[in-house]
C-alpha cells in the first residue's frame, strides 16, 4: 500500500487496522545475498540492492528485532561537515539522499533540515573551522562562519561570556539537521520488503561456513542458510562476525551514551555543539532535549554507560547553556560503537571473494545510513566500490592512507 493523505483518510473512515509495514517470513534455504545485521545500514543496503541494482533474492538477518541496535539509539543528527577528501563527498551524497529520502521510500522519516551550529571559543578554533568550512565549500557543501552577534540571534540563551569558554562565533551548516531515527529503519525495511527482500528478525548468525575459499552458508539460531554472497553490517559487533571468518579488524567496540530530557516547550530550533567540550544538543518534536557527549573510553559490549560520564556531559551542557541546570533528564541509554583506528569507516571487499564488509562507523553511523546502504549495495552488486566510497578500504591502515579527521592516530577512544 502506498502511504498518502488519502490513504490516511480512507483507512481512518473505514476503521481498518493498518497492515504490518513489512513481512517477517521464515528464512528460505538459500539467497543470492545474505546481509548480517538488520540495523539502518543493513536495511538500507537491502533496499538499494533491490531498488537500484535489481537484486531482490536477499535476506536481512537481525539477531534482535528490527531497529533494536544503534539505529534506535543515536541522537538523530545528520550533517556533511567533513574536512577530508575521502570523507566529504561520501557524507554529502548521504545528505542529498536524506533530502529526497521520504519521497523515495514513501515513508515519513521527519527529515528536518534545522541546521547544525558548531560553536567557536578561540582564535585557533575559528581558524580550524574556517579551514573546514572552506574545504566543504570547495566540495560544493554549504558552510558559513557566524560571528558572535549572529550566533546570539539564533541562540540567545548561550553563556557567551563564560569565563573559561567564551563564545566567539560558530560554523553553521544549514542543510544539516535531524531525522526520526526509528522511521529510517522502518522506511527502509518497508521499502525492501515490498521489493521482495526477506527481513528475518531474531535470527542470530553463529558461524560462517566456507568451501574452496569462498563463503557458502551461515549457521543461525533459525537454521542454516546458504548464500551466494555474504555482507556483514554488524556495527559494534563487527569484531565478532569478522572473527567467524578469521579477520581481525582495526576496530574496538566502545559504549556511547545518549540522553533525553523531560518534554519542554519549543526552546532550541537547531542542532548546537559545544566547541570546548564534548556536548551537543537538539530538541525533538515531542519537546525532549536530545543530547550526548563522548564515549566511555574503555572497550565495552554492554549497552550501558556510567554515571560519571552523565555528570561530565551535564557539566558541559550547563557550561554552554546555564538554563539547562533545571532541566530533568528523563532517560539515558547507550549503544556500542565500532570505533575504527582512524575514526573513518570501512566499506570493502575482504580476502574471500564473496564476502563484503561494512564497519567502523564510530559514532557517526546514523548520518551515513543512506550513502552507506547505497555504496555497500553498489559494492555487492558490481563487485567494485562506489565512486564516493573508494577511500574506505580495509587495507588503508597497512598502506598508510588513513582518513583521520581529528588527527588522533591509532587510538580509537580518542576519535
Amino acid at each position: 500500500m502506498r502511504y498518502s493523505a488519502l490513504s490516511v483518510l480512507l483507512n481512518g473512515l473505514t476503521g481498518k487496522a493498518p497492515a504490518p509495514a513489512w513481512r517477517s517470513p521464515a528464512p528460505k534455504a538459500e539467497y543470492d545475498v545474505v546481509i548480517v545485521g538488520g540495523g539502518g545500514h543493513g536495511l538500507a543496503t537491502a533496499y538499494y540492492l533491490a531498488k537500484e541494482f535489481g537484486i531482490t533474492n536477499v535476506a536481512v538477518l537481525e539477531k534482535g528485532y528490527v531497529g533494536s541496535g544503534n539505529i534506535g539509539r543515536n541522537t538523530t543528527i545528520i550533517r556533511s561537515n567533513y574536512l577530508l577528501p575521502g570523507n566529504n563527498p561520501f557524507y554529502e551524497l548521504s545528505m542529498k539522499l536524506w533530502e529526497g529520502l521520504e519521497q523515495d521510500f514513501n515513508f515519513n522519516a521527519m527529515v528536518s533540515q534545522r541546521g547544525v551550529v558548531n560553536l567557536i571559543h578561540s582564535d585557533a578554533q575559528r581558524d580550524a573551522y574556517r579551514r573546514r568550512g572552506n574545504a566543504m565549500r570547495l566540495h560544493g557543501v554549504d558552510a558559513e562562519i557566524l560571528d558572535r552577534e549572529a550566533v546570539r540571534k539564533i541562540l540567545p540563551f548561550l553563556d557567551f561570556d563564560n569565563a573559561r569558554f567564551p563564545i566567539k562565533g560558530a560554523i553553521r551548516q544549514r542543510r544539516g539537521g535531524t531525522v526520526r531515527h526509528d522511521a529510517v529503519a522502518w522506511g527502509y525495511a518497508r521499502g525492501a520488503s515490498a521489493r521482495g527482500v526477506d527481513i528475518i528478525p531474531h535470527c542470530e548468525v553463529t558461524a560462517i561456513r566456507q568451501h574452496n575459499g569462498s563463503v557458502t552458508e551461515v549457521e543461525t539460531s533459525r537454521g542454516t542458510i546458504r548464500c551466494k554472497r555474504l555482507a556483514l553490517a554488524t556495527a559494534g559487533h563487527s569484531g565478532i562476525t569478522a572473527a567467524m571468518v578469521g579477520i581481525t579488524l582495526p576496530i574496538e567496540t566502545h559504549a556511547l551514551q545518549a540522553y533525553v530530557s523531560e518534554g519542554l516547550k519549543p526552546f532550541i530550533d537547531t542542532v548546537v555543539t559545544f566547541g570546548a567540550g564534548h556536548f551537543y544538543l537538539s530538541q525533538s518534536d515531542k519537546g525532549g532535549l536530545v543530547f550526548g557527549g563522548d564515549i566511555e573510553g574503555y572497550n565495552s559490549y554492554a549497552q550501558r554507560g556510567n554515571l560519571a560520564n552523565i555528570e561530565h556531559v551535564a557539566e558541559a551542557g550547563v557550561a554552554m547553556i546555564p538554563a539547562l541546570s533545571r532541566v530533568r533528564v528523563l532517560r539515558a541509554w547507550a549503544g556500542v560503537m565500532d570505533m575504527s583506528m582512524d575514526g573513518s569507516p570501512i566499506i570493502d571487499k575482504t580476502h574471500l571473494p564473496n564476502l563484503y564488509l561494512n564497519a567502523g562507523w564510530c559514532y557517526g553511523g546514523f548520518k551515513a545510513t543512506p550513502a552507506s546502504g547505497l555504496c555497500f549495495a553498489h559494492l555487492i552488486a558490481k563487485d567494485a566500490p562506489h565512486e564516493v566510497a573508494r577511500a574506505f578500504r580495509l587495507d588503508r591502515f597497512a598502506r598508510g592512507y588513513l582518513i583521520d579527521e581529528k588527527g588522533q592516530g591509532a587510538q580509537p577512544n580518542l576519535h
Partner: protein
Amino acid sequence: MASLIPCPHCGPRPKEEFTVRGAALPRPAPNAPVAEWQAHVYLRENPRGDYAEHWHHSGGCRRWLVVNRNTATHAVHSVTDAAGERP
C-alpha cells in the same frame, strides 16, 4: 565498567581515578616484519568477553597497570603492575 579497580599498590579505588590506554599487547621485536608491526599498531581482537588492557592510575600512584576484565559484564578479574610478570 565496574565502579572499583583494585590497584595492587593503592587497594580498591574508584575507576574515575584511572585512565585507559587500550589492549595490553606484547610488543613485537624491533626488527619484526612490517606486517607484524602493522598488526600491533592497528589490529585488535576486540573480544566480547575477557580482555587485558593497560590502565594508568593517573589519579593515584601513577603506575601503569594491566587490568584483566570482561568487556560484556565489566567485571574486573585481576590487576597487576605492568612492570611485573603477566598472569
